[in-house]
């Protein structure tokens, strides 16, 4: 339905109106909080109230769409944003099962995180910004899921990136968040370039941005569109090779990590793929599956060795997202979506528990005047006694993540793994790597999450080892209700209740060629083995590294992806930039100044007249200054410095010298000697005539 004027709004479905109101309300909230939040004592309650309202609205929208039959959907309302070349570019709301569900999820989880944050962020002086940014984020995310076309999706996609940038860099005085936020944004930008290219091609080919008719003919352009969109999605969902921003993004406040970098924003890429995948070319789907499975495995391996409580979860997120992407690639899109929803609950929960742990540790540290890294699991242990509620909630989340029966993960993960097997079965041969990697990844998932639980909650507390006093454990505060409530709700959301209320052990009936009913159980068993193995290995706390340092680093430093990027992309790029700046100054501008210098230097003599001085001062000296100025060697890459010194300097100097010498030798005509004037005059005439004769008679 096309809106032409405001009065048309009266004909729009209520759910659609409500859905549209959600991002607008949130945006309004952002503006209010950003402008007046500081005066409202941070405005935390306002934010919570607002998000409570939107959560209700979101739930309502979800519920109405969920109960609507597929054939009456989507509810689509759009209006013209602007016109270009006679074609209108539209914005609109697209409500179907997917977007309705996503809207409910996003608003709901955001609300829970808000509640949790009330106590987490209570003492930060900048908290009004925090609330504002969160509202901005929520608005952007809602806009993204509701978008009815790819351009609009891209708009909100970028805004989500902005909010993420601001939230990661929330503690901007510290170095780590500053770097991490920059990295996150730039890496995302690179992927977004892919998105933009896709949009360019779509516009050129289809003249509209709706995904409806996309990939209809499956020609080369369509393949490229698919690849470019995939690149965009990979960036946002932190898949290979873009995953390196996500672990660093943990530098933000933990609730932010839980909301953005686990539950919602990072699934935007998956959401995009879900929207467009059905009609994609098979080759792209295969690529997607491979990338997803590979990333899942890589991230799972990395999660094994992390010591930072949040980094484990970050790699886990990358890994789970990998499984979803693989799921879409192998054709199990429904299960990927299911996993997306489930993952949102349990990963958000996991981060919130981590947040609670860190928050409590901080408080205890403050009271006990202990100083150690509150995120390092090696200094934790035995915390189940100090915060039992948190521990219980964590158990639910971890079980869901591992894919144990009765929890949500069991339902979705077996679907994904079965889908992968089916895919391998269809293609055969090398394709078996995909399910292999996925299964291995899910096994490792169970292992590392168990490791985390053991290190954090089990055994004895190791804080003394880090110099904390005996009173440290006693200083632990009680878990705040504002923290507890979200955890409990999320824990409930991680069980089977929401997903398959009737049959807690609902097993995916995926179209696998070989019907193997025991497979899901085998996966669950595998997870159990992983948990047990971890329990055995870490029964006495953290392990000293017995592995080869390189192998350990391979995992710990995530296959050196970060340093490799630095070496191969960042540094060369910056070196290129410096080189170009030098070329700009010495070669391009240098050429200009050289020409000017040549003109002005003509006939330069030893007796410098004032004019020549002036010329020197204004046109030659700047070059000379630049050439002579001592250069900061450390800041230049060696190659650039070499090139600069050996080539450009010499070139400039050389040419300048030649010119000056020539100028001196020629002397100048107006020497003051009359007879020379006459001589030159006659020579001039003779030369002129000879030239003429040469030209016309040869």
């Amino acid at each position, binding site marked *: 339905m096309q809106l032409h004027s405001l009065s048309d709004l009266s004909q729009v479905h209520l759910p659609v109106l409500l859905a549209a109101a959600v991002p607008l309300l949130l945006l309004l909230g952002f503006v209010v909080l950003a402008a007046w939040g500081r005066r409202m004592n941070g405005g935390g309650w306002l934010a919570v109230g607002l998000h409570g309202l939107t959560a209700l609205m979101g739930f309502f929208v979800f519920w109405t769409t969920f109960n609507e039959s597929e054939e009456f959907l989507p509810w689509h309302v759009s209006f013209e944003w602007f016109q270009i070349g006679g074609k209108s570019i539209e914005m609109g709301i697209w409500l179907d099962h997917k977007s309705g569900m996503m809207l409910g999820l996003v608003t709901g989880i955001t609300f829970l995180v808000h509640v949790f944050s009330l106590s987490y962020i209570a003492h930060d002086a900048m908290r009004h910004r925090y609330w504002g940014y969160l509202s901005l984020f929520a608005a952007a995310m809602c806009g993204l899921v509701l978008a009815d076309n790819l351009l609009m999706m891209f708009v909100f996609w970028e805004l989500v990136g902005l909010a993420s940038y601001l939230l990661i860099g929330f503690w901007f005085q510290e170095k780590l968040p500053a770097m991490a936020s920059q990295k996150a944004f730039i890496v995302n930008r690179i992927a977004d370039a892919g998105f933009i290219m896709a949009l360019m091609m779509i516009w050129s080919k289809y003249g509209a941005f709706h995904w409806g008719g996309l990939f209809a003919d499956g020609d080369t352009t369509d393949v490229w569109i698919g690849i470019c969109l995939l690149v965009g999605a990979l960036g946002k969902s932190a898949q290979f090779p873009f995953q390196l921003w996500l672990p660093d993004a943990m530098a933000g406040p933990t609730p932010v990590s839980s909301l953005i970098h686990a539950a919602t924003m990072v699934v935007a890429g998956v959401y995009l793929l879900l929207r467009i995948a059905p009609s994609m070319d098979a080759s792209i789907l295969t690529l997607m599956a491979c990338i997803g499975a590979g990333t899942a495995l890589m991230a799972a391996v990395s999660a094994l060795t992390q010591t930072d409580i949040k980094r484990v979860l970050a790699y886990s997120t990358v890994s789970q997202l990998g499984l979803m992407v693989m799921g879409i690639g192998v054709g199990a899109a429904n299960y990927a979506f299911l996993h997306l929803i489930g993952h949102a609950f349990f990963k958000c929960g996991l981060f919130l528990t981590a947040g609670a742990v860190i928050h409590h540790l901080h408080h205890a540290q403050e009271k006990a005047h202990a100083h150690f890294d509150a995120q390092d699991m090696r200094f934790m242990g035995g915390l189940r006694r100090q915060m039992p509620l948190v521990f219980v909630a964590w158990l639910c989340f971890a079980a869901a993540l591992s894919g144990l029966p009765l929890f949500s993960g069991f339902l979705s993960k077996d679907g994904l793994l079965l889908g992968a097997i089916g895919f391998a079965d269809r293609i055969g041969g090398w394709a078996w790597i995909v399910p292999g990697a996925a299964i291995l990844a899910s096994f490792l998932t169970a292992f590392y999450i168990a490791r985390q639980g053991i290190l954090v909650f089990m055994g004895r507390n190791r804080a003394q080892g880090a110099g904390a006093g005996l009173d440290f454990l006693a200083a632990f505060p009680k878990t705040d209700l504002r923290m507890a409530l979200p955890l409990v709700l999320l824990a409930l959301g991680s069980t089977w209740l929401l997903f398959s209320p009737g049959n807690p052990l609902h097993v995916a009936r995926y179209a696998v060629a070989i019907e193997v009913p025991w497979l899901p159980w085998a996966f669950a068993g595998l997870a159990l083995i992983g948990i047990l193995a971890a329990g055995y290995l870490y029964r006495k706390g953290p392990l000293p590294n017995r592995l080869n340092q390189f192998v350990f680093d391979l995992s710990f430093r995530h296959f050196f992806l970060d340093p490799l990027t630095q070496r191969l992309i960042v540094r060369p790029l910056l070196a290129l930039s410096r080189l170009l700046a030098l070329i700009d100054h010495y070669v391009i501008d240098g050429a200009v100044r050289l020409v000017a210098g040549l003109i002005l230097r003509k*006939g330069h003599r030893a007796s410098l007249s004032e004019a020549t001085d002036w010329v020197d001062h204004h046109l030659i000296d700047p070059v000379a200054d630049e050439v002579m100025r001592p250069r900061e060697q450390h800041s230049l890459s060696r190659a650039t410095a070499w090139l600069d010194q050996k080539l450009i300097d010499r070139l400039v100097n050389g040419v300048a010298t030649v010119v000056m010498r020539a100028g001196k030798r020629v002397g100048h005509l*107006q*020497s*003051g*000697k*009359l*007879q020379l004037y006459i001589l030159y005059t006659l020579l001039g005439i003779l030369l002129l005539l000879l030239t003429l004769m040469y030209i016309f008679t040869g």
Partner: protein
Amino acid sequence: MSAMELYLTLSAFLFCLGVFLVVTRRNAVMALLGIELILNAANLNFVAFNTKYAHGIDGQMAALFVIVLAAAEVAVAFAIVLNVYQRYKTVNIDEIDTLKD
């Protein structure tokens, strides 16, 4: 060689001598002598060519005017030379070069 050719060759010779004098002699007076030679060379041409175009007398008239003009020129030129001599105590052209770039 015909008379005409002799006239013309002599005129050319005088012209070149004039140029030579102007270009190479340091003394301003000598340079002026060179200019006189050039004017005489031209005059010689006029007169010689007039024999070729005998129906008119234009060549001789031109020579006549040139003689008068040369006199005027010499008057001005020597007045200036004397002035220079008073200022510089020399009439060597190559020593008088304060005006230059």
